[in-house]
């Protein structure tokens, strides 16, 4: 299941080319980090605009063009009431898409970067003293890996 196995196990035996040749000094310079940020931010913004904006649009439509919203569809169910029910459907679909997007696009990238970060820190800490400054409330990586 893990696409990015923790590499610290195999570093001692043979050199890893991409790390040896171009060691990214900081995680935030890594190209994968940028695509991670893009993937998360773009989807979040779009989906929020779609669901929250869609709802506010529905409120506006109901207030300002009631004639359209009052056309009956089946029995007493008007277009407005149907759109209102549709909000619940849109929410369900958006939540499902979000979970799927995070699982397939974002989580693997984050996992890979996390193992790389861990590795960088290990390399830095081995020769010298504790790495983190005092400004950080929680020491990153203090608990090590959990299951994935």
């Amino acid at each position, binding site marked *: 299941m893990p696409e990015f196995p923790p590499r610290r196990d195999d570093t001692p035996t043979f050199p890893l080319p991409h790390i040896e040749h171009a060691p990214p000094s900081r995680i935030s310079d890594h190209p994968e980090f940028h695509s991670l940020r893009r993937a998360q931010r773009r989807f*979040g913004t779009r*989906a929020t605009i779609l669901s929250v904006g869609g*709802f*506010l649009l529905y409120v*506006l439509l109901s207030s300002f063009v009631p004639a359209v919203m009052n056309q009956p569809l089946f029995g007493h*169910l*008007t277009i*407005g009431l149907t759109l209102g029910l549709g909000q619940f459907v849109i929410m369900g679909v958006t939540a499902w898409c979000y979970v799927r997007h995070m699982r397939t696009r974002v989580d693997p990238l984050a996992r890979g970067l996390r193992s790389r970060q861990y590795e960088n820190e290990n390399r830095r800490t081995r020769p010298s003293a504790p790495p983190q400054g005092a*400004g950080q409330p929680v020491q990153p990586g203090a608990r090590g890996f959990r299951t994935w």
Partner: protein
Amino acid sequence: MVTIAAIDDSSLQLTFVLFLTVVVITLFTALLTAPQRDEISEFYLGNRTMSPLRNGLAMCGDYLSAATLLGSTGLVALTGYDGLMYLGGTTVAWMMVLLLIAEPLQRTGKFTLGDTVALRLPRQQRPVRVALAVCILAITTLYLVAQLVGSVALLTQFTGSPSATTRTLCVAVIGTFVILYASLGGMPGATVIQIIKAVMLIVGVLFTAGWVLYHFDWNPNALLERAADRSGTGLSFLEPGLRYGGTVSNKLDFLSLELAIVLGLAALPHVLMRLLAPRSSSVLRRSVVWAIGLVGAVCFGAGILGLGATALLGRDTIESTDRTGNASVLLLAHELGGSVLTALLTCLAYLTLLAVAVGLTLAAASSLAHDLYSEVIRKGRASETEELTVARLSGAVIGILGILLALVAWGANTATLAFLAFAIAASAILPTIIYTLFWRRFTAKGALLSLYGGLLSSVLLAVFSPVVSSAPASFYPEVDFAWFPLQNPGIVSIPLGFLLGWLGTVLDKGPAEDSTAHEEFEVRMLVGADD
């Protein structure tokens, strides 16, 4: 206010017994699960290894207040379509939490929102923490008063307009329970009562909604037809505009209210605190999805309850009991299931407002103890025991403050107070959260300007709105200084909060924060530290 007692005495006694039983049992459980050691993390965050379903239930319990169960249902019963849109907004609000706020906040957070902002703006964290604490205190107090006032309003359904002694007793008893839960139980205790309340709420609302539909042979069309028939307004009951129709300012008022509901949730302190509880972000994600599903189900059921109340009782009965429609659920329960169902739902309503009040008190206490006392007054040198004592004490102080204010403002409209709290949250706290998480250049000056500016503008606009003066339902109906025409300040104050945050940042000529602070923050936000 209300003059006629809606429901007979036997169900009041039954309610009393039921409520006391539930409260005593949950109080014991809360004390048993209370923090054993003097650990602030346990007091603030509770059990961090709960399953997603339980977390989702707790979030749902924190979020759904008596305003939803009684107020929104009453609005559906009286205004049909417009009331249903409230319930839609209540659910949609969770989308923003799921899509934008929850996971970044959980990865960068520790105990309070102040910790996240401090990680991002380490150099000037103290003034920002103070500003956050002030805003959080304003929001939680207002919302707490709304819950306690709601308890008086609920009592009114049984006894008619209560005497001063009854009123004081009711608020004091509920307030004391709130203090006990929050100060002694901490987050673990609050979680117990949230989960019990959420389960009861979901079961109670869906069961009663099912009963209503069963009454109409599971035919929603028959329910709609009958509701329109007995609403006294005919088909316009199923059309927009009954409550917020007519003038443009009415329509804008409705948009303003929906804006505050949809954006305010993502900035409510007790909901934010709940988001920090799960240890891993994948658990948090599943918890929020659960919460969306559960909140959606309750809101859907509440809509059916409101329509059912009008269909089975008729508008006149509901309105003659309580002009605001708050009694509709209890009247419906009485019609369907006699005094037993009435007692059950009343007990549920009391439990609901008690649980929300506990969550709020805890959020305010943690903000005071952690942000204000530990990080600003003691500059981070306070021991855990000391901070914990301060947290417990501030819980008690906020509870007492809430009780006193609720006794002064007992005649206020619960829903108006609650929606005002939402508007303040959306205009003061939301801009800071969004900018902190997503804007690289954001500075402390921007944060301060948007926090204080959003708070001041929304409070001032509310003071000069029809909520306080000029309207028959306002605090001072005789005088008129309401030059702001809308009931809810959201439509002006929310954009203003964002604008001030941007302005403060752009005009900030002081020494910039370290660029590494933002980088570290972003790495933590996206990659996570210990997940």
